[in-house]
């Protein structure tokens, strides 16, 4: 029998269940996160306008750069201010 040493961080993979989708958007506040990819701002601005037309509360956020995860304060701000988030993942 050969004994090997585990090269990984030994984290058992845990699959987090997704949050249930909301039945409707009325009464919820939606975060719109621009991750700073090219033209993401154009797309998300239009999305905001469409939500506004339907009377849905929304707030815009932006990451300083797409090359790094969002700074922790921004993550926390979003988590406390909105109910769900839409982000543009790529250009």
């Amino acid at each position, binding site marked *: *029998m*050969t*004994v*090997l*040493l*585990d*090269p*990984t*961080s*030994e*984290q058992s993979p845990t699959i987090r269940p997704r949050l249930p989708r909301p039945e409707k958007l009325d009464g919820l506040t939606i975060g719109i996160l621009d991750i700073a990819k090219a033209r993401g701002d154009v797309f998300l601005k239009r999305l905001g306008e469409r939500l506004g037309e339907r009377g849905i509360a929304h707030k815009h956020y932006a990451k300083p*750069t*797409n*090359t*790094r*995860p969002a700074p922790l304060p921004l993550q926390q701000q979003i988590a406390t201010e909105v109910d769900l988030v839409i982000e543009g993942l*790529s250009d």
Partner: protein
Amino acid sequence: MSFTPRDGLIAVVKRDCPTCELTGPVLSELAERVSLQVYTPDDPSFPENVPDRIDDTDLDVSHRLKIEVVPTLIRMERGREIDRTFGWNRGEWERVAGIAGLGLELPDSRPGCGAKNIEPGVIERLKIRFNETGLKSRRIAVGEDEDEQEAMYERGWSDGLPLVPPTEERVLRMLDGTARDPQEVIGLIPPALQPATVEKIAVNAVMAGCKPEYLPVVVAAVEAVLEEGFAMHGVLATTMFVGPVLVVNGPIRRRIGMNAKGNALGQGNRANGAIGRALQLVVRNIGGGRPQEVDRATLGNPGKYTYCFAEDEEGSCWDPLSVERGMKPGQSAVTVFAGFGLQGMVDQKSREPESLARSFAESLKAMHNVKLAPCCDALLVICPEHERTFRNAGWSKARLYEELYKLCEIPGAELVAGAKGIAEGGPASIAGKTVNKFRPGGLMIVRAGGGAGMFSGIIGGWSSSGPRGSIPITKEVRN
């Protein structure tokens, strides 16, 4: 394991040691006069004239007595060691034995031989048997009928190629390559931000095929990619081609036999291949960075298996890259660059530096897309025959950087979207301006390659080069 030392004298000797042979008559004399047990790690029939010989070919007693040299003579009293000497020295033996006039026919002293239990390969097995390794990693037992390679593939540890099985012996030997504490945490590896201990890095270095003496380079490379400026998370997660490219400078290159000459960027050198691969495995296994998961690369590039080479410093008229980046001459260092692939730069006719620099500049301008500027950083690997042209003309590296930067100024009109019939490009507002292909300081130059051939190379970078994305990082290689 059940060894309980008896009071009196204990000697550990081996037949394959001339000094032990020499002390044979002394041991026989001692055996007649006092309580003496003789342990023999290689030949239990030695020494013939001592009755109380004990077989220690499994080396358990030698290990537990921490024997480093044979012969060793120990005096035990009330179950505890109170005196010890090794090699042959009449005065010392007389003191330990408490008997005068030993071995009068022998020379006064002779050095001993290395003990069998501390030989490389043996000491590791003994530490494992006695649970003294200090290794913390989870042990994974592979069944006798199971194929080790398949077991490792199934667990997702491989980059696609076979791995060296990371057994405890191999990992212990790997850790001999560094003076660092195996439990020292070098940093948190993205994307999962899991701690990379020296031990975990060593496990991955074993799998990559490293020798112990490569480990300090691997650790320095891990330190480098974990610097905030390198943005390892982004380099991994990007859809672009890049991965860490490693350039090694300083005396470590030659000590571990790295290739800086012919085919420096190709296959065939163990250190070049294994060090770059080890870094990739660290990101994969400790950080959990895997293709089609957090690694979103559209195509990637073959350098994501391994991309590591040494600069050919000897005979270069320029400072090594590491010195240019703040290291002292003679200091070993690794520089990491978020780069990909190799674009050949062929010029067999230029004999003047101006012409050759123009060749480089025109080739550089094609990087990513002729319509994109500034596009990314680049690492130029200049071959000796091209370097010679600059050397003969007295061009310093600083001069070459300056000339290349000037030559990479592009009229904005050529870069506007739609120009040259190509939709890619910049906004109309740059039409009247000049745009440089690079950010200031976005070029790095190293010298490497075989002595024949006017073939240099361009290693392209990431479109997010620079402080907003990734900048090259240089780290000292420490033992």
